């Protein structure tokens, strides 16, 4: 807000003109305020990233110790069926999980914002509660619900005399995991969208009311376009979340060990490479590649966002 063009011109003028001393002190104070954050940033983000890249350039051999291999680990990853399978799986997961989550959250947010609802506060809070539940607990709980031993769904199926649904079979596992993350994150997503809807200036509704637009028409041509930056931010978080998938399959592996292998998702694979196979160099390459894919997809989301907001 403060960095509007006139302010920037003034800043440039001042930096080179008189008053430079006061300016320099001002700048120094600014650096001092951001210094603690930057120190931690370098220590726990930049340094590990650099180290991961460095590690990924080496390989340890039984004979000859650790040797520099250049980008060979990356080359190996591209022909590693376990890794490629994991990447395909999380891509598929993203395509199932994100549209349903964003779609339902948008529907809930629009419904709560429609002013045609009862119990708005109660419903909003109730849907948000799962956000406070750790993903481990969510996965444990749903794992029990899905399961055959004392699972609720199996109990109900037995009572009405039908075959229990195979939530934990390899065919349905991905959907079952997606359901856990819907349960966890739809409420949060909905709350963020709802707040954005609440912040739309009321004048816009007056204009569309004059045009004779109904509630659905208003939602489609006023509300959704107005919160598009928020929708794209949330889509971006969905991409990150999908490619990081770890806790849920890691927990579900306890109840379905034959379905979820050690390389079910790229993150599980990297984890097991370090702690089971003792291959930290290759694991670093895998981690780096996953991060790189997320980076590219995130930039794609942001690029599309900028392009659309510049040419409406």
């Amino acid at each position: 807000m403060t960095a509007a063009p006139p302010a920037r011109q003034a800043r440039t003028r001042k930096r080179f003109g008189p008053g430079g001393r006061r300016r320099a002190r001002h700048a120094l104070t600014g650096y001092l305020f951001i210094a603690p954050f930057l120190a931690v940033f370098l220590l726990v983000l930049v340094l590990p990233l650099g180290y991961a890249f460095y590690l990924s350039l080496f390989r340890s051999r039984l004979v000859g110790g650790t040797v520099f291999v250049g980008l060979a680990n990356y080359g190996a990853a591209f022909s590693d069926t376990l890794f490629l399978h994991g990447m395909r799986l999380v891509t598929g997961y993203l395509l199932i999980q994100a549209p349903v989550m964003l779609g339902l959250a948008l529907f809930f947010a629009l419904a709560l914002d429609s002013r045609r609802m009862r119990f708005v506060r109660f419903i909003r809070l109730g849907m948000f509660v799962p956000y406070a539940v750790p993903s481990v607990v969510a996965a444990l709980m749903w794992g029990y619900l899905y399961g055959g031993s004392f699972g609720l769904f199996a109990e109900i199926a037995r009572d009405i005399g039908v075959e229990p649904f195979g939530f934990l079979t390899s065919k349905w596992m991905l959907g079952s995991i997606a359901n856990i993350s819907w349960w966890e994150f739809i409420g949060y997503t909905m709350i963020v969208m709802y707040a954005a809807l609440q912040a739309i200036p009321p004048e816009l509704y007056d204009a569309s009311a004059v045009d004779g637009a109904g509630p659905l028409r208003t939602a489609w041509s006023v509300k959704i376009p107005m919160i598009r930056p928020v929708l794209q931010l949330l889509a971006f978080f969905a991409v990150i979340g999908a490619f990081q998938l770890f806790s849920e399959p890691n927990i579900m592996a306890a109840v379905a060990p034959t379905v979820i292998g050690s390389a079910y998702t790229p993150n599980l694979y990297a984890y097991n490479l370090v702690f089971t196979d003792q291959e930290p160099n290759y694991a670093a390459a895998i981690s780096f590649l996953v991060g790189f894919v997320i980076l590219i997809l995130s930039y794609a989301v942001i690029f599309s966002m900028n392009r659309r907001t510049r040419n409406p």
Partner: protein
Amino acid sequence: MSSTSRTVQRHSIPDEPASPVAGRRRRGGRRSRRDLRPSNVLTLVMLAFLAYFLLPLVWLLISSTKNVTQLFHSFGLWFSGGGFNLFANIHTVFTYQNGVFGTWFENTALYAGVSACAATLLAALGGYGFAKFKFPGRNALFGMILGSIMVPFTVLAIPTYLLLSKVSLDNTRWAIILPSMLSPFGLYLMRVYMEGAVPDSLLESARVDGAGEFRIFATIVLRLAAPGLVTVLLLNLVATWNNYFLPLVMLNNPQLFPITVGLAQWNAQATAGAGSQALFNLVIAGSVISIIPLIAAFLFLQRYWQSGLTLGGVKG
């Protein structure tokens, strides 16, 4: 919220959505003017969806009152006739394996509390620096920090573990606290919030009065940014309280585990069978205990996060 900050908010650029604070204030007026006849169909549909979100928790609560036999032999969504075992389960949770669950609970509280406070302070200092000071490289640095939001923390965890094990800091409390102190999204939220809530004129007059920069920050800025601070604190509290991957990677000493890793381990033992089935009721009761503090925090701090938690989304 002081009236000064509201005035500042009102002058924000028109195509930028107003702050949640302003939104909340305006909503009151709009409700009385625009509320329509409630639709029963829509309300019923939403209540049906609400059941989806609440029923698993209801199941968890009811199951926490059962022992293992009752778990297997009674309907999941109703209490078992064979006795109310909630307190027995809680007692077992806290005494099993020499009371290790209590240690896990303390660890979780310590990790989450310390990391969240540190992360919030760092984000507030940095956010203030970016919001109210102009210095060479400001945009480049901010862009870099913003870009780092895209770096998934689970991707960072393994290299961080390898680094920390070089200096023998893996398998210590620091291995959890240090990485959790970084919150680029928190810094972004604090910058946005302070640009709106801290008027430049107030800072200038404090400087004219001779107040030092740090005193201005501690006495004026932190107070004006309080709702934003609570939001960032809550976000980081939830993130660390619920974190699983980082402690799983960093720790192998059960005495240092947080609840999440401990419960997952009990669950793995329970599902592995071999006579350890008795653990199911422990996992369930432990889960209930672990989610109560955060749900309580969200209920008590509703006023804050409902205006602040959504800030990032609103500003897009």
